[in-house]
């Protein structure tokens, strides 16, 4: 970071820090990029800026372990800087960038480039994820060791599922040397081939080729079994089906090293959104049924699914303004994730705020061995201060992300970031915050 930031005193907020068990209204002092002290009635040191946190929650900074920043390669669609600023505006202090860039992030130089661009952006932290295989081709392993030394925090072939079970096994074994998770996008390609939405009555009516749940579940159980064989940590991206939850539960009960994420959209939308061939609702894995949503919510509550990740996937508007089958998969998520979880899951009575913080900060930090995830003294001052009640309407034109592709346009939500602080530096302040 450029220079030592001013001291920040977060006054009067409700601090929730599952890692230290703290859950009370109190003050937090940040100094030299670290949490200095926590306690009621802390005085502001000379030169400190006091941030009014009255009525807000003060949480360890949110971490999104799954987003697509398109740089290098498609800077017209998103850049590391715009993505990192969008993240900060959405309350994320750190995001993990998937390696499906052009060229692919499959070597230490490419990883170093992302780190440097993120430093320049000076918004949310950006942790690169390296490719599992050279060129994401699914053939030979990329150099995990050098990528980790350059700053990579995990490996994944992202949207290109690891077809070869042998390669997946090898990756799970080799990654253990460096203590990083192997992330898989679970999709059995011969089943999913040509599909553009969930296979069910809606796809049958619309005449769109469906992607059955089993395309995901077959790979989920394969990966869990390979994690059992190897002892490696497999992290399953964007789970979307009831069956996947059952399989993960099966694996966890047996002590297998499997973790999983779910996106805000798979927690809040169903295949019905596709009606009228709405490309804004086209994502992979596809939106499923109400029953799947119900089971995913319960799995997030009980911890079977460990965390919420956005799968932020910006696209140029031209790319989405076309025939459904030809439009690309994916939606942006960094600036709507927090409010969706607050509105639909907390206000909806599924989880409480403590669980929200655990699933969006504590666990992502712990499972990916990232800085942050706690407000304990002397830890990095990555903090999200958020308003649980402030209502707003989603207007893609106001996004800091270059991507405008969201199915939530016009949706009224509650909850937003008041302050986002990275290493003791304020990187986002809501317009009306004092």
């Amino acid at each position: 970071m450029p220079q030592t930031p001013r001291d920040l005193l977060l006054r009067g907020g409700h601090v929730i820090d599952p890692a230290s068990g703290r859950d009370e209204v109190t003050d937090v002092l940040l100094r030299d990029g670290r949490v200095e002290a926590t306690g009621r009635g802390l005085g502001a040191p000379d030169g400190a800026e006091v941030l009014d946190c009255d009525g807000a929650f003060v949480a360890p900074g949110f971490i999104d372990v799954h987003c697509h920043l398109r740089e290098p390669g498609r800077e017209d669609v998103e850049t590391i800087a715009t993505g990192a600023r969008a993240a900060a505006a959405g309350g994320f202090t750190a995001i993990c960038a998937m390696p499906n860039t052009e060229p692919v992030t499959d070597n230490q130089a490419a990883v170093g480039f992302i780190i440097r661009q993120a430093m320049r952006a000076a918004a949310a932290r950006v942790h690169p994820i390296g490719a599992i295989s050279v060129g994401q081709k699914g053939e030979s392993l990329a150099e995990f060791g050098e990528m980790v030394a350059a700053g990579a925090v995990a490996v994944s072939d992202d949207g290109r599922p690891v077809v070869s079970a042998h390669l997946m096994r090898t990756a799970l074994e080799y990654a253990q040397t460096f203590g990083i998770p192997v992330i898989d996008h679970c999709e059995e390609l011969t089943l999913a081939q040509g599909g553009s939405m969930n296979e069910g009555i809606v796809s049958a009516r619309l005449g769109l080729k469906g992607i059955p749940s089993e395309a995901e579940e077959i790979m989920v159980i394969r990966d869990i079994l390979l994690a059992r064989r190897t002892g490696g940590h497999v992290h399953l991206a964007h789970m979307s089906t009831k069956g996947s939850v059952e399989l993960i539960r099966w694996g966890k009960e047996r002590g297998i090293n499997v973790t999983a994420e779910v996106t805000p959209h798979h927690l809040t939308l169903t295949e019905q959104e596709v009606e009228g061939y709405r490309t804004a609702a086209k994502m992979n894995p596809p939106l499923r049924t109400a029953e799947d949503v119900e089971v995913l919510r319960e799995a997030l509550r009980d911890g079977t699914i460990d965390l919420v990740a956005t799968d932020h996937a910006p696209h140029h508007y031209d790319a989405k303004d076309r025939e459904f089958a030809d439009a690309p998969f994916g939606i942006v998520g960094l600036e709507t994730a927090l409010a969706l979880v607050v509105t639909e899951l907390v206000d909806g009575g599924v989880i409480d705020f403590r669980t929200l913080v655990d699933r969006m900060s504590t666990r992502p930090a712990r499972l990916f061995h990232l800085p942050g995830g706690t407000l304990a003294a002397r830890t990095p001052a990555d903090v999200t201060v958020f308003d649980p009640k402030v209502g707003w309407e989603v207007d893609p034109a106001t996004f800091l992300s270059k991507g405008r592709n969201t199915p939530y346009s016009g949706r009224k939500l509650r909850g937003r970031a008041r302050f986002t602080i990275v290493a003791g530096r304020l990187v986002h302040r809501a317009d009306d915050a004092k």
Partner: protein
Amino acid sequence: MTSALGKDLLDLESLTPDQIRLVLDTAVPFKEISERAIKKVPALRGQTIVNLFFEASTRTRISFEFAEKRLSADTVSIASSGSSVQKGETLVDTARNLEAMRIDMVVIRHGASGAARFLADRIESNVINAGDGTHEHPTQGLLDLLTLRDHFGSLEGLRVCIVGDVLHSRVARSNIWGLKKMGAEVAVCGPKSLLPYSIADFGVTVFSRVEEAIEWAQALNILRLQLERMHAGYIPSLREYNRVFGVSRERLERATHDVLILHPGPMNRGVEIDSDVADGPHSVILNQVTNGVAVRMAVLYLLAGGRPELAEAAKGGGER
């Protein structure tokens, strides 16, 4: 001006039974025009229509062209080869260009499901779906309904089975919606690999053996089996398909009653339908083709704002 059908005809799923009945009733007087020596009335004089065919089609395109010409519309037909589509123009740009040329109506055939709706949402012209991907083919559904109604007098309670590749068939979807809305009982029959996973949710009966379907049905609508389904692994061979699901005279004769035979064409004789069935006494396949022109005339006329009660008069003079 909003017509009795609305701005566009995109599918039968969203039509009401009254709207379907209106098209069928309007088609009846138009049938007679095609029997005249001079097959032309001035009902759509001055209207410009573009037939936009992004997929190869002979029968449907010609049927639309005749319908348009017999109503005196000015028409242009564009096939995907030789147009800007080949140069990579997007559908949204095609739509904007048509809009800029002030076209009154667009008839579109496209390989992507939802393409007709995509166009309709973006231009003010009336859009008629002439088949979009594996979604719907509403004018085919309507002409099938008219053919069945001509023969049976009513569709209420009629038992119709659709046989074949329902999974990839836009004709099947339009038939299912149209028939059900008009009170018919609908069944489908085919190898399970060629039926949609959720087929039962359409409210249709499913037969896995064609013999049972024939025994149940008063009419069979036999779908064309596309050769590429075999290469894509949905069925092992056309020979075996014919052996298990082909509609043959022998199978029909085993039924305890006569069964009317429809086929949307083009037929694969000896695959889904045997020649002696296609050419047999219960086949109305050519009636379908004749009705196709009349139904399309009715749709064009109604979408252009033509008043249904004047269809009879429209045949004779310039009254609109």
